[in-house]
């Protein structure tokens, strides 16, 4: 968590290797492997996933076809029709989207809520080891929020997936229980704690943290 402009999305994009960001200091280490210079696709292969805050639309390719291509990057042999169908059925069930949704062009003409659901659908299909969710809860109504949270919880339970949830709002944390809470300010993680940190933020905002950090820096 952190106020606007504190660097949360920058961190998310940097973890996945967005070409617009250059790492000038530090490393990205993942299971003993240095991914700092790795191509985005290699990071995905290593089990990282980013649910984008603003997912790009890809006209001309259906959600289902894109999922098939993405899954095939993880395999030696292309996924067979039956296995793919079963996986897709499971994932669409989990996220309460109908199958027709997956025949639409990827994010093309999707509403804000549909885009977010589509991100989580991809996450459910690709089964990453760690998913970064960049403000996936923004712009969702309460039902959609619950569905998305349920998806994250189920994947965590079923596959052991870890999730780094970037959010502005406490409300998603009513449905996803965090083990650790990190507060970012001006590009740095300035506080770490448990769920109680969220309660305190909800009551007092970020000002007290800013003051404390300022006092330390001063």
């Amino acid at each position: 968590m952190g106020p606007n402009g504190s660097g949360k999305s920058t961190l998310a994009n940097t973890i996945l290797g967005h070409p617009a960001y250059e790492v000038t200091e530090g490393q990205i280490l993942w299971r003993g492997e240095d991914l700092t210079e790795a191509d985005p696709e290699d990071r995905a292969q290593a089990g990282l996933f980013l649910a984008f805050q603003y997912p790009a639309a890809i006209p001309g390719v259906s959600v289902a076809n894109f999922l098939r291509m993405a899954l095939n990057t993880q395999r030696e042999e292309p996924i067979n029709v039956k296995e793919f169908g079963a996986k897709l059925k499971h994932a669409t069930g989990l996220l309460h989207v109908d199958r027709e949704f997956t025949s639409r062009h990827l994010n093309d003409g999707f509403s804000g809520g549909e885009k977010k659901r589509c991100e989580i659908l991809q996450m459910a299909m690709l089964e990453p080891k760690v998913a970064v969710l960049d403000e996936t809860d923004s712009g969702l109504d309460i039902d959609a929020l619950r569905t998305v949270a349920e998806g994250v919880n189920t994947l965590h339970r079923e596959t052991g997936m870890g999730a780094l949830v970037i959010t502005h709002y406490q409300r998603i944390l009513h449905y996803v229980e965090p083990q650790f809470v990190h507060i970012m300010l001006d590009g740095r993680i300035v506080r770490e704690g448990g769920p109680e940190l969220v309660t305190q933020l909800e009551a007092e905002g970020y000002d007290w943290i800013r003051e404390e950090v300022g006092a330390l820096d001063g």
Partner: protein
Amino acid sequence: MAEARSTKKGAARAATLYQPLEGRGAGDGRSVEEIRAAALEAFERLELPTWRRSGFWTTSLRELDPEALEPKHVEPGEIPAVVGEALGDERPAGLLVQRGATVVHAELDPEAAAQGVVFSSLEDAIRTHPDLVREHFMKRLPYDTHKLDAAAAAFWTGGAFLHVPDGVVVERPFQIAYVIDEAGTAQYAHTLVVGGANCDFRVREYDLAGDFTGPALHAGHFECYLGDGARARIAHLQDWGSDGQEVFDVSTHFTRVGRDGHATWIPIHLGGRMTRQHIELSTAEPGADMRHRGIYFTEEEEHLDLFTVDLHEVGNTTGDTVWKGAATGASRASYEGLIKIVPNAQESHTYLQTHSMMLSPRAKVDAIPSLIVETDSVSASHGGTVGEVDETQVFYMRSRGLTRHEAVRVIVEGYFEPVVVQLDDPGLEGLVRERIARKLAAAEEDIQAYAAAK
């Protein structure tokens, strides 16, 4: 995207190069042989053309040596392999293949023949259906616009003729293939299609190159006249190869839509050393409607010069044109698309848009949509975009595990896909997709260089 709406008289075409044919046509009751003789006279009089748009575009034939080219007459019978590969397994309503100067194969489904359909070489049709041919031949095509126009009208041999009579509906397509498979070939092609009142059919013309290395010329005419209420779906696939074949293609295509009729016209340009193409679609009577979709993809040193005309000759007509292109290598592509609405054609409604995608730092693309509206009370708008691969899309797909190359392929295929599906023909759609994928693979280095340069 620029947009202009016109509700009053006016004309604006500073950057444009080409003129619509409009009513100009040779057909005035003269016989085919009389027109041929007049065209020969024009051929001898005219010089090889060069087309120049002020300052930044030239289409020149200086690399073409007409003396080194001649029509190649071959033995009929064998269908060249390239035709089989391109046409796939679908059973057509008719298939006509011209190789070089000779029609080597012509067949018509007996069911269609029983309905009165005529499908043969144009040479044969002059003998078997002289009145039909004389009534329509070059009715709306001139023979003296430039030297190669005259050459096509003077020297054509073989050719294709299709007549679908009044009220006849044929589901399966008529396929016409012009094949060049020998260096030094000059191929002069002529296709004449006549659709009677309320008929409904599909016709496809394929321009294909066999395995050869060296120069060749294709100069052709295509003309299609549709009666009242007639509906036609026309596709045109040009693929003159990219493996040493150096085909120059200078052709003129014209289709006329009749009262309450409809034409869908989809030209696909996938390759040729130098192509200069004039494609004109006329909605000629009230209620006529046309839908025009096109694709081009140029690579290496190819030069493509397209001019399309959406001509409204009377009021209460509608049109809709969308062209999409991509350019790799050091290729040059120009698309000029004109909407022309003549005086007194009130209540014409039409739209034209053109999109181009640059895939190489060395490629050059021009997109020139233009409007000439000589009446009031119409809606006509046009727009154009020239774009590049969107790196946001590329990163999105890479974050899901696709390589950069795969991501670019998905983007480019997705860009063309809305036009490709309108071909409504799984065989042809598959061929177009496969060719685009091959071109992208071949241009991988350019695409990388372009991304790195930004």
